[in-house]
């Protein structure tokens, strides 16, 4: 066996891949050969480290040095300096300045971004090679399945699950053990387990990252669930827009089958379990479980009324359990370490940890896993580093199109399912989008409503027609054509849709409007009464002008204006914008070096 002295882990998650990490990986191979180190250093592709903002990330072990923003042209320096001569390339090293002592922190475990996190679902992301089942086995992979199959009865597995307090991570937060129990109680010898990997919220990428970084733990979780409920076949429903995740799942399934960890007579216990991947075409509604099952059956993805619940009559009319990716990723650890270990983490009613995808106006865009009960403030300011460019925080949107916006006043809310609902939003699958003073809340509501209108399947009229009417009203308001009556009308319609829509998509669709109406009514009123967009986003309400006192008559704005609506004489006469022709593109503002262009 060849012995390497150094492991170089290159992030191959989607975020870093789109920042060219695949080329970085290749360059390492080339450079190492050049220095004759190819037998001493192993380069491994791994899953998401979470710090997507600083990607591509490269970690060097055993030195435990993390490099960030690594470009292909930096690779040779890392190889020649660090790997050949042992000198860390400090210019690329990930570091943080201690807020009090101003000392440079290099230890990855002490950096704020990681310090507050507790990684259970993400435990192997950025640590192992997701395309090598050996590495998963090395970190206790498939041991939980072995333990469950050889020492526990199905009912014991379910009881352990109930005791752990794990709730569905897809958004609704239904207790996982209960779900398994319902399905196990339903008679029948043909049952199914489905992994819902149809992650569709704008800005959410938790499930994708788990599948990309540690696909085997989801397979193991599914096998355990299957054993508990008495299923022998499973489906992973994943969208085709996640090609890296799909590919790694395929590799993992093949490897697990090769080792006999999937298939017939697993661990010699007589338990059989097979699964297959079903690709979705990326319809948001297919994340709703009844629609998802229609899609698996090859029909048009549309929801059905419940009951019957999937646990009674699911895919192919058979009892089915549908669990989210993150839920399943937690299962092996719970079985291995015990429910009593797990239920000590988190709050009274929400146990364990939750993965959030941090996005929007935040310094550390990325993926974080925190124990339930952590406050929004800790996530946004301590882990996320707050809003960049000294902008003022305005709101945080959680739960995607089904959730709502929370303000500064709710930042000290400890995160759990019930607290977020009480505050007017929801956990959702874990997208967390931070908005700052430059975001218009009416526009944000309009964005989500636009998304919902696109994604509504059209089966029930409250969702199909109601959301369209809401979008029309919102659009009018952003154009300055709204009336105060519209606000009441919208609110009324929102509640009607909530009460009457067929599935979760429609029932939660009005949430972004309701929460922004509740917390940011003043912004709606500014649009309607003053015909003004306070954040300067809604184009129709903007007006650009040039302050003649500040104008240096350089002609830069006029030369850049795409419609030629700015006139003046270079060096002699201040420039002016003809507002009747202006398309409000903002190019003049961006090109003026003296801050003379003003937006109202």
């Amino acid at each position, binding site marked *: *066996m060849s*012995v*390497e*002295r*150094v*492991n170089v*882990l290159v992030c191959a998650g989607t975020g870093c891949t789109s920042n060219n990490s695949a080329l970085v990986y290749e360059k390492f191979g080339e450079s190492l050969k050049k220095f004759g180190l190819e037998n*001493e250093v192993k380069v491994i592709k791994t899953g998401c480290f979470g710090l997507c903002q600083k990607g591509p990330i490269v970690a060097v*072990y*055993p*030195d*435990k040095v993390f490099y960030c923003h690594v470009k292909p042209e930096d690779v040779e320096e890392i190889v020649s300096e660090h790997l*050949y*001569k*042992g*000198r*860390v390339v400090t210019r690329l090293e990930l570091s943080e300045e201690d807020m009090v002592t101003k000392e440079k922190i290099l230890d990855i475990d002490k950096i704020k971004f990681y310090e507050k996190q507790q990684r259970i679902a993400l435990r192997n992301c950025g*640590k*192992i090679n997701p395309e*090598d089942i*050996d*590495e998963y*086995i*090395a*970190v*206790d992979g*498939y*041991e939980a399945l*072995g*333990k469950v199959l*050889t020492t526990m009865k199905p009912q014991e597995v379910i009881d352990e699950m109930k005791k752990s307090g794990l709730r569905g991570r897809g958004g609704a937060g239904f207790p996982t053990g209960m779900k398994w129990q319902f399905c196990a109680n339903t008679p029948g010898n043909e049952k199914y387990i489905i992994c819902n990997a149809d992650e569709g919220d704008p800005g959410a990428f938790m499930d994708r990252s788990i599948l990309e970084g540690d696909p085997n733990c989801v397979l193991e979780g599914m096998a355990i669930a299957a054993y508990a409920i008495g299923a022998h076949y499973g489906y992973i429903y994943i969208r085709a827009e996640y090609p890296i995740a799909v590919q790694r799942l395929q590799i993992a399934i093949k490897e697990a089958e090769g*080792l*006999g*960890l999937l298939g017939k*007579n697993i*661990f*010699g216990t007589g338990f059989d379990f097979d699964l297959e991947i079903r690709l979705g075409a990326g319809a948001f509604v297919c994340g709703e479980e009844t629609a998802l099952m229609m899609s698996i059956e090859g029909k048009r993805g549309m929801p059905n009324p419940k009951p019957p619940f999937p646990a009674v009559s699911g895919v192919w009319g058979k009892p089915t359990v549908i669990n989210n990716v993150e839920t399943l990723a937690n299962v092996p650890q719970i079985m291995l370490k015990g429910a009593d270990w797990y239920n000590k983490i988190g709050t009274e009613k929400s146990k364990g940890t939750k993965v959030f995808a941090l996005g929007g106006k935040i310094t550390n865009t990325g993926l974080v896993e925190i124990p339930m009960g952590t406050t929004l403030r800790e996530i946004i300011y301590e882990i996320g580093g707050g809003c960049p460019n000294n902008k003022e925080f305005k709101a945080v949107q959680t739960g995607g199109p089904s959730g709502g916006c929370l303000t500064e006043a709710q930042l000290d809310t400890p995160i759990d399912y019930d607290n977020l609902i009480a505050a007017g939003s929801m956990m959702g699958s874990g997208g967390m989008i931070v908005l700052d003073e430059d975001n218009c809340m009416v526009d944000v509501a309009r964005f989500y409503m636009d998304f919902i209108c696109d994604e509504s399947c059209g089966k029930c009229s409250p969702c199909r027609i109601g959301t369209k009417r809401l979008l029309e009203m919102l659009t009018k308001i952003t154009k300055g054509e709204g009336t105060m009556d519209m606000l009441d009308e919208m609110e009324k319609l929102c509640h009607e849709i909530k009460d009457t829509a067929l599935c979760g998509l429609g029932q939660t669709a009005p949430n972004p409007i309701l929460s922004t109406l509740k917390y940011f009514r003043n912004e709606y009123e500014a649009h309607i009464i003053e015909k003004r967009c306070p954040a300067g986003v809604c184009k129709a309400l903007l007006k650009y002008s040039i302050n003649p006192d500040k104008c240096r008559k350089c002609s830069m704005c006029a030369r850049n204006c795409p419609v030629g609506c700015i006139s003046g004489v270079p060096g002699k006469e201040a420039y002016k914008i003809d507002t009747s022709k202006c398309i409000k593109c903002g190019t003049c503002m961006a090109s003026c070096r003296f801050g003379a262009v003003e937006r109202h």
Partner: protein
Amino acid sequence: MKSLEDLKKMREEALKKVEMREGGKKYRVVVGMATCGIAAGARPVLNKLVEETAKNNYDCVVTQTGCIGMCVYEPIVEVYDNQGGHTTYVHVNAEKAEKILEEHIGKGKVVEEYTVDAAKNR
């Protein structure tokens, strides 16, 4: 794979692939690998250390560093333990490296004759 035993065996084998990422070893063996160290023959020393450690499952990680500042004594190997202890070996070659592992890491006994103090007093 047909039993839990098989899985255990596989895990022990696979552990070698990932263990350097885990940390938690008793000793850290550091080789000076700057130009001076490499010129004096640090590379065969490093390779020997890595090989022997893997072969004998010594409780240590082998890693490298830049110039330690005593170029005249290169190749230098430093051994740090997790109690804060620190020993510097000088003029190390592959043979001495093997002995350092065997005695110091394996049995916890410092090889006095190879240390920097011994070299200074010589």
